[in-house]
């Protein structure tokens, strides 16, 4: 990177996002099903079965052009190849001269002859070894392998793969299309002959998917923790809805209920031609998430699983940001020492393992420190008396100071001297002084029980 920057200071770099690429490829695979019912994903491309399909588009060449054109309209520079075999088509797509290359039936051997060995889907180490031996074309390899002795010799050096791949490309060895899309195991899918867009239709489809998915979950002794509904639109885009649950669940009706509240917000665009329901996170059914951490034998006798449906519904109805819990955050500044986290969200990675401060803290921290008038000895004495909300408190006992400096990396913040004080009535307060003589101010920040 540094070297590249040195050469081109105007270089724009963004981090490689393999997961993002995979997601994009997956949605493209879904979308590409308009060209063929059987679509499989490669590491860096898609394979479409042309059988019985290409002629509908006016022949193979027209089919290829249509595909490349359609990708171009989506903003992708695609390359395509078609041939008798997967291997030859793979090579044509990547090493063909044109963006769309058709290898006529029976022409694979001739067509591939001038491609480099890389066109045979060989590992890089094998390609490098062939290069060193001076074998720079598939044709050279073909000639070498023609001789049985050399073929054995090559296998002893590079393994059976070159020969095998060559035969696959020529159609002398079988290779299945491999239709197993690397889809999540927990997925339900529904395709529509005619695109749908009415909310009622979508809900019906959802119900169907939920039933199917929950059955799968049940078979696997699993419960859903996070689900995603993907609606593939005819224009190649997709609408997503995701939701989470506090405890594993697999009740289709409940699942539909959770989604249903959001369906009206879903934009079907020009119509939806396929729906997917994924269980993105699934936990073992028996696992119990003690999310609320209610103590055993709590007065109300509530168990987490009793509260879970309520939290789920409240969260999914009011929005994740509205139902929260407090999580400790390591900061010496008292008001920053905890943070609100949506009840269903996991503790943010950055806060995992955060401890609570050891110094004494009041049970109740005021939302904002409230200014008080106080009388105290300089430089760091505790207040003798103070007035808060118009009432004067005589301090009977005090402990402190606890000196808390500002977090310098967030800007200039002044230091505070905190005191725990008790007034004549036995009420205990948490007060602090900020600033030095001259600009000195007192605040009340919390109440002890």
């Amino acid at each position: 990177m540094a070297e590249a920057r040195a050469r081109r200071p105007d270089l724009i770099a963004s981090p490689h996002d393999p997961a993002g690429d995979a997601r994009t490829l997956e949605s493209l695979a879904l979308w590409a099903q308009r060209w063929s019912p059987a679509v499989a994903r490669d590491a860096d491309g898609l394979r479409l079965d042309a059988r019985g399909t290409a002629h509908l588009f006016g022949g193979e060449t027209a089919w290829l052009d249509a595909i490349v054109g359609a990708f171009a309209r989506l903003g992708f520079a695609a390359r395509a190849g078609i041939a008798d075999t997967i291997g030859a088509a793979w090579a044509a797509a990547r090493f063909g001269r044109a963006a769309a290359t058709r290898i006529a039936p029976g022409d694979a051997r001739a067509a591939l002859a001038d491609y480099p060995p890389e066109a045979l889907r060989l590992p890089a180490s094998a390609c490098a070894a062939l290069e060193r031996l001076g074998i720079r074309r598939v044709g050279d390899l073909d000639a070498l392998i023609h001789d049985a002795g050399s073929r054995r010799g090559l296998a002893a050096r590079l393994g059976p793969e070159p020969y095998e791949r060559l035969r696959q490309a020529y159609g002398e060895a079988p290779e299945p299309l491999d239709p197993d899309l690397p889809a999540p195991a927990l997925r339900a899918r529904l395709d529509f002959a005619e695109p749908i867009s009415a909310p009622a239709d979508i809900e019906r489809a959802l119900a169907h998917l939920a039933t199917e998915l929950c059955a799968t979950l049940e078979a696997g002794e699993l419960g859903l923790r996070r689900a995603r509904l993907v609606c593939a639109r005819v224009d190649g885009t997709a609408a997503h809805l995701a939701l989470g649950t506090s405890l594993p669940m697999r009740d289709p009706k409940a699942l539909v209920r959770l989604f249903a509240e959001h369906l009206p917000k879903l934009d079907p665009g020009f119509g939806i031609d396929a729906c997917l329901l994924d269980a993105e996170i699934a936990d073992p059914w028996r696992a119990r998430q003690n999310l609320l951490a209610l103590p055993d034998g709590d007065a109300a006798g509530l168990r987490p699983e009793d509260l879970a449906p309520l939290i789920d519904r409240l969260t999914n109805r009011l929005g994740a940001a509205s139902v929260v819990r407090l999580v400790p955050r390591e900061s010496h500044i008292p008001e920053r020492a905890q943070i609100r986290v949506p009840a269903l969200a996991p503790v943010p990675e950055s806060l995992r393992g955060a401890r609570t401060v050891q110094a004494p803290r009041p049970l109740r921290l005021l939302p904002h420190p409230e200014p008080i008038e106080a009388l105290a000895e300089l430089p760091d004495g505790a207040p003798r008396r103070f007035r808060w909300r118009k009432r004067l408190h005589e301090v009977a006992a005090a402990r402190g100071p606890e000196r808390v400096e500002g977090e310098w990396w967030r800007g200039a913040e002044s230091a505070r001297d905190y005191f725990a004080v008790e007034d004549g009535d036995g009420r205990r307060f948490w007060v602090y002084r900020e600033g030095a003589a001259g600009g000195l101010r007192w605040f009340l920040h919390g109440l002890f029980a």
Partner: protein
Amino acid sequence: MNGPPPYAELGVTTNFSFLRGASHPEEFVRQAQALGHAAIGVADRASFAGVVRAHVAAKAAGIKLLVGARLDPADGPPLRVFVKDKTGYAALSRAISLGRRRAGHGGGCALTLDDLDALRGRAIVLALAPRGLGALHARFDGDAFLALARSFDGRDDDRLAEWADAARRAGIGAVATNDALYHAPERRALHDVLTCVREGTTIDRAGYRLAANAERHLKPPEEMARLFRRHPDALARIAGIVEACAFSMEELRYAYPELPGAEPGSSQATLVRLTEEGARARYPGGVPAKVRAQIDHELRTIAQLGYAPYFLTVHDIVVFARGRGILCQGRGSAANSAVCYCLGITAVDPARLDLLFERFVSAARDEPPDIDVDFEHERREEVIQFVYARYGRERAGLAATVISYRTRSALRDVGKALGLSADAIQSLSGTVWGRSDGLTDGHIREAGLDPDEPRLRLTLDLARQLKGFPRHLSQHVGGFVIARGRLDELCPVVDAAMDARTIVEWDKDDLDALGILKIDVLALGMLTCIRKAFALIESAGGPALDLDAVPAEDPAVYEMLCAADSIGVFQIESRAQMSMLPRLRPRNFYDLVIEVAIVRPGPIQGDMVHPYLRRRDGREAVVFPSPELEAVLGKTLGVPLFQEQAMKIAIVAAGFTPVEADALRRAMATFKKNGLVHRFGDKLIEGMVARGYARDFAERCFRQIEGFGTYGFPESHAASFALLVYVSAWLKRHHPAAFAGALLNSQPMGFYAPAQIVRDAAEHGVRVHPPCVNASDWDCTLEGPTALRLGLRQIKGLSAAGGRALAARRPKGGWRDPAEMAFLDKGDLEALAKADAFAGTGLARRPALWRTMARLAAPLPLFAALTPAPEPPPPLPELGLGEAVALDYSHLRLSLKAHPVGLLRAALGRTGVEPCAALTTASDGTAIKVAGLVLVRQRPGTASGVIFMTLEDETGIANLVVWPKIFERHRAVVLGSRLVAARGAVQREGKVIHVIVRTLEPHDALLGPLASGAFDGAIARADEVRRPGADARLLPASRDFH
């Protein structure tokens, strides 16, 4: 008289408790003095690494230092131990050594209270926690205390009362401290950053690992009195402790050891005897009077200072090395000594040079002499182990080097702690690199960053504070400390990262400050090369040579050097040196001394080079600013070129005392103390002006003295190096094959890649043969006086063990087939095949590769006859010449078949490219286009951003000058291309020819598909793009590209 009770901070943790303390020892000491503390107690974590600095600062500030350390015994509370006397000091030093060694490389100091028994009655022990106080009291009696400190966590009053109570119950006293981690509260932010670095986290995630407040600094006595007003006795006890700890570092009487087995007190007599013997051997025709006087003077001074054992030790080591056939030669100021010359330690003949013994040893200066001896780099370890064996590990150890934060490392660590992205840190450090003047917003924006971003500002500010902080201790390159008594009673001794080495915790400056002698056992690659060249010459039937047997002042050698024919020659093979040679035209040994010294940033920055050359050429009158300076500057034509001259100018022209001049030299050597140098600067310039010198001359003198700080050569040092320059040049002139072979056998060293060394040899009439399984040894060998056989070591990817085995097991008739080499692993066999080393068995490269790609089954001896003959390789496409050359470069880093550019001559010719050889006849100012492989890219710090590139084609080389504007336009070509065409104007200055570049074109595509990495091996070691900071010792200061 109602002042506060006297206070001394007994809880000081400096930045030598790495990543814990946030102030330098000096800062603590100065602050304590400024605040009116009665004393200061420095106790770093199981270390004395910062003690000497604290001592020096305390001495200067006139404040008492309590020497101590913090220890964490496994069976007691953490302790701060301050020694009362010398015995206590020795015991604490031993305890630290023991604990550190016991803890091993994991760090820490594993001790128990029993290990501290020797400290009983000899040290004050402060417990830092109220545990095990009873046991502590039982062990240390009235010397045990409990340290109280406020932490401002809201519970101080309760805790102090509790702790004081615990102390009372245990029968020990409580003592007030403030447990300081930094000298002033402003260091809190830096301390937080250090915490993040230590914990490997960022400021946003460090949480409660950060301190809540900024209270752990030195506080005024009044404030301490107020804070401990409820514990007046804890304050009162401080005075007693300070008084009890009477030890001062001054008391460490370092005694230099006499030679093992020597009669006590006989050293001086032995030294005189050895010197006289040496003198007779050095001057068989009688010792010249001048040298005689010098020897007598030196021996007197040595006797007076008691340094004889030191000279004998060095002599002992040198004799050992010579006995083992290890070449060695003294360098540095020791070359000023006739005694060292007679003892064979140095090689500069005092009769030939006018040297200055006072620069080396002086009775007026209380400073130990410093003898540095270079040994062959490949065999120095033998010498090091000899010293350990001779004196024992109890008495000998290597000095430490304090590795400090530099601009870049400070930026990196601070940036990381503040959560900047790796990219942002990279851009930032790229921008600040080489800028001493600080960053403007423009610079930051140039790096693609937002100067208004507060974190960026914080990072820069904190990195500036962190710069210069010690980061860890490493071992000095070869400085040995040898003691008469136990070394670990002088200073803690710890194991070095490298096996079989032990180091003391003090660095060169610390040792100097305490007057402890050190012997530098240094490594020098050129000595290895020279020894190997001698051996090769002898192997080819030539004479047996050694350093002294090389004929002196051979005109043919100077002839060669005047023509800038110096590839491979020690010190003068760089581009800058090469362009100086034809201008300086060295004709005798002293010219070489000047040549070595002149191409240095010191003289260059001081603008001394051109005046000297003009005067040498007679184009400028040789005048002296004053008669007194004529004596100083006479031999350099009135232009100061050497460090000694700068010193003498300070003395004779600016009225410095020798001691002040020496202090100036020290200030120069430690460039971190920039402020100090400038204070001297004013004194020097004003002093010279006051004595009637022109201000601009005075300023020039000072600029040069400043330049010497980092990169100056003393004359004696230049003279020592010049000897090796001469010897290596003589070898190159008279034994080019042996010299080239020795250079190749000593790689990596020097400026040039093997390709250039081999090419240069071929141009000097050497026939060079490729590596061959049947003809090559591991090393390069001679096949006759002018025929060089490349060694198997040239083959990339071949293991040394494999290569040596191949040569050692070679059958009488030679190898016939790779199958016989089953003892080699597949990687070695393939490496041989790729490098075409089987050609000697009749196997061409590709068939050989085919053969070696499959694992060769080792034929069992019994069945050897039954093993089927290997299948013949199939018909593989034959290699074209171009491909073969590219493969040669890929796997041998050079090709003997052809020059790659020669093969492309026709194609390049079509674009108007002329051969580099055309430059030799091109007249000044003509336009030309040349092309070649990129050999070196450099951006000297002294050349204001100009980049020098060297291209090579089959006819020669072209030296390009790329101005910054052109560089910006062709950045990618300069930094990335291997084959470059340059269009520009010829600039001639005598024999020095440059092309001032107007445009650059990349032609890598012509090199074919292998080009991507194949020609990287052609790039010289000195290249700064591939190897930023390559061999900084030989390079002048340079700015990095990134």
